[in-house]
């Protein structure tokens, strides 16, 4: 065991003497700290901004004057997706999805104003976050620091000397790997300090944070082993460097770009415009609300009249127009749910194809696990959209019920100059409509979503360990 320690200490001493290596390491640490700081303040700023918008929107809604309930259905409500504390570490798709939504009756609007459409093109070069530094840049630093670990010894002939002195190939490999592994831990440390800052915030969940920490630790160790493995397998250090750069470029840059293209081509999405048209078509097939003799709406009317035991809608104790609005909203909402479920099913199929590439490129698996645990992946966005739709349906139906109960049918159909006044209900009602409160995912759900990615990254790590065992055992034979 002491041989391993000696080798590791020697390697570390060598790295410390290498000025370029020290500067590169310091720069990366600095960059991580900057990333953690900016990402954290950005997350705070965005969270505050959205909270402020949300309270303004809530206030505006409550401050409406006396209005006809159906006017309020069209006045609608604005809601904003809050940003969880872990988004400071990995904002995931936050910049790419809209974060505000206008909710109104009969329509399902998109989430609008994502950062990607409000920023310069630079956003497409990546966002400086701790996750970005660890996913993309940290492996590159490990490559720069470690490509020569064994290739250098072989190139200079010192590898044979070392082995002749009785150090086993496995000890030598382990020593080099331990040295680089320590560096990897040091690289990961600043991001983890940032993480600890986040942990102090309310709403930060321990389980997902542990999964993220575990995932990135496995990721950095995987690269440590890959670097030493390649260095052990090629003849010259230059070849080791080029081979490692090629592996990095393919696994970290190229495959994560190719995978979404293939996924998108394999499962094309229906556009929003087509979905809108299809929903309108389906609605017309259910019944034509503009036609007084439409069988569907005639049957509905008859059902209501029977229920209350009256002959005419004018004799109903409630406002028939309100009941009709409730029924109409039920129909459209059911269609919205169905089409949204279809769209999300396609999107999950796309994501499944893409995550399948994680088997080829652990970067994809790591990114998925990181976003999933942070709650900033597609599922997190869907959680917001689903809750938004449920809330939209709830407030619209409350307003429709208000129309049915608080506005009389006679007033609602009246056209005299004073009718507008009589149709309105008191502004005290708006206060009683509940505000939107986003329910974030539970720790168990987040951890569960992150597990497949974690399994792939750890699987890769085990494969690398097996390869290291094999290659280091043969180091003796391939020492020249």
């Amino acid at each position, binding site marked *: 065991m002491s041989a391993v320690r000696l080798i590791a200490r020697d390697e570390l001493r060598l790295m410390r003497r290498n000025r370029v290596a020290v500067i590169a390491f310091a720069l990366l640490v600095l960059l991580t700290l900057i990333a953690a700081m900016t990402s954290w303040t950005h997350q705070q700023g965005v969270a505050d901004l959205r909270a402020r918008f949300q309270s303004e929107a809530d206030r505006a809604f409550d401050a409406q004057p006396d209005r006809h309930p159906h*006017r309020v259905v069209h006045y609608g409500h604005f809601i904003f997706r809050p940003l969880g504390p872990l988004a400071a570490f990995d904002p995931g798709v936050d910049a*790419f999805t809209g974060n505000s939504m206008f909710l109104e009756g009969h329509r399902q609007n*998109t989430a609008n104003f994502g950062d990607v459409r409000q920023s310069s093109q630079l956003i497409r070069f990546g966002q400086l976050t701790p996750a970005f530094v660890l996913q993309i*840049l940290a492996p590159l630093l490990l490559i720069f620091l470690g490509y020569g670990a064994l290739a250098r010894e072989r190139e200079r002939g010192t590898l044979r000397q070392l082995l002749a002195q009785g150090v086993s190939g496995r000890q030598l490999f382990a020593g080099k790997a331990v040295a680089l592994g320590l560096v990897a831990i040091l690289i990961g440390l600043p991001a983890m300090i940032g993480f600890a800052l986040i942990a102090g915030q309310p709403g930060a969940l321990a389980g997902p944070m542990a999964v993220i920490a575990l995932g990135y630790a496995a990721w950095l160790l995987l690269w440590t082993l890959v670097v030493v493995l390649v260095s052990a397998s090629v003849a010259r250090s230059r070849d080791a*460097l080029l081979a490692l750069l090629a592996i990095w470029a393919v696994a970290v840059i190229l495959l994560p770009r190719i995978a979404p293209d293939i996924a998108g081509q394999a499962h094309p999405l229906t*556009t929003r415009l087509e979905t809108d048209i299809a929903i309108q078509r389906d609605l017309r097939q259910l019944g034509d609300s503009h036609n007084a003799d439409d069988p569907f709406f005639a049957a509905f009317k008859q059902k209501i009249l029977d229920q209350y035991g009256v002959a005419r809608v004018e004799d109903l104790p409630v406002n028939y127009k309100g009941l009709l609005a409730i029924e109409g909203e039920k129909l459209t909402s059911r269609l919205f749910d169905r089409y949204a479920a279809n769209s999300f099913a396609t999107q999950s199929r796309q994501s499944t194809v893409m995550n399948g590439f994680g088997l080829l490129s652990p970067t994809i698996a790591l990114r998925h696990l990181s976003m999933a645990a942070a709650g900033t992946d597609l599922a997190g966005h869907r959680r917001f959209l689903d809750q938004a739709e449920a809330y939209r349906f709830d407030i619209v139906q409350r307003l429709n019920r208000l129309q049915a109960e608080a506005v009389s049918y006679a007033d609602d159909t009246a056209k005299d100059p004073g009718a507008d006044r009589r149709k309105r209900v008191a502004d005290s009602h708006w206060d009683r409509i509940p505000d939107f409160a986003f329910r974030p995912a539970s720790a168990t759900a987040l951890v569960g979503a992150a597990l497949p990615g974690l399994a792939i990254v750890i699987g890769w790590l085990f494969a690398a360990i097996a390869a290291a065992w094999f290659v280091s055992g043969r180091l003796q034979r391939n020492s020249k």
Partner: protein
Amino acid sequence: MSPIGHELRLLLRARLAAGALVLLALLTAASIVAGLAEVRHQQQVIERIQPQQAADVAAISQWVSKIEDPGSAAYYTFHPTWDSPSSLAFAALGMRDVAPYILRVRALGLEAQLYDGENFNPELALPGRFDFAFVLIYLAPLFVIALFHDLHASEREAGRLTMLRALPRSRRLWWRRGLLRFAFVYFAVALPFAVGAIVSGTGLPTILAVLTLIAAYLVFWVALALLVGRMSWSSVTNAAALAACWLVLTLVLPTLAHVAINRAIPLGQGVELTLAQREAVNKAWDIPRETTMARFFASHPEWRDTPPLPPEFHWKWYFAFHQVGDESVADRVRAYRDGLQARDAAARALGWALPPVGAQAALTRLANTDLAGQLAYQDRVRAYHERLRQFYYRYLFNDIPFGAPDFEKAPKFGSIVPSK
């Protein structure tokens, strides 16, 4: 054998170099194919919405033509708009994957419709597209580094450098060798692009502009590699230094600049604009209708001498307050747009210092897939929406019945604007 032929043989015998060049050509070709496929898909979507849209309008026409009510026609009928990809869009998809390229609008307030998003999977958009711009900007420099980092150093490490330098006309040897490698990299990138551009029907000036851009961008990286190569370091140090330059120029500095630009140029969030527009529109129900009409007539005097509002609901008041709502946020719209453009301009200015950013900006500009392209599309939607409003106002304000044939008369997106 000619000296060039000799160098060619040397280059092709080096497995690393030959393999790298083939790989680069394959990757470029793949990106071109992917880009062309995406553009064809977008064109197909634009084509296939037309009959669906026509069926939708026909269904509305069926019941509206019975009551001949122009207000219902204007309220219920959506009109499609689209932003066809340019002939170069396949090379740089730019913002086309996150911003809608089809949008349908109706004659109501535009500011509540213009910023709607498209269905897209954000997890797919996050890593960016695999298009030609990506291969050129990110991958090609890595190949340049692989081929140029040891131009001198390999000869030194093989012990031949002093001998080569002693040869007469040795400078020419380096020129020959460097140019040959450059030519190979250039053609590995440019040839697949040129084929794709011809398939896509790109105009010759645009093709030449992109070919020049490719050359300029690659020259920058070759020059950087040669500069580093002059430091008389070992080939491995050269490679490490160049990879570090690549990292800083394509990943680190752009992400830092993104943070800096968004801080330096704060943008009134677009959502503030829509919130304000919604307040303005809905307020109309709570103020005297005459106030709204007065404001409307002030900016649209051509409808002033039309019949007065009847005591009951009339659609022309409804559309008037939507128009007034849009106009009340015109200043915010301008400020929002200026902010977007300021951010874009800052990134463009940075392109002069960071060639990867500059190349991306230039490519997306040529392909009209950048912010300017987006805003131009919004402008076309705006102009079209204005024509739609004028079309319906004629019926609304003059109480002209709106029959089935009138649906056909509605202005079509993309057709020539009639002279006023």
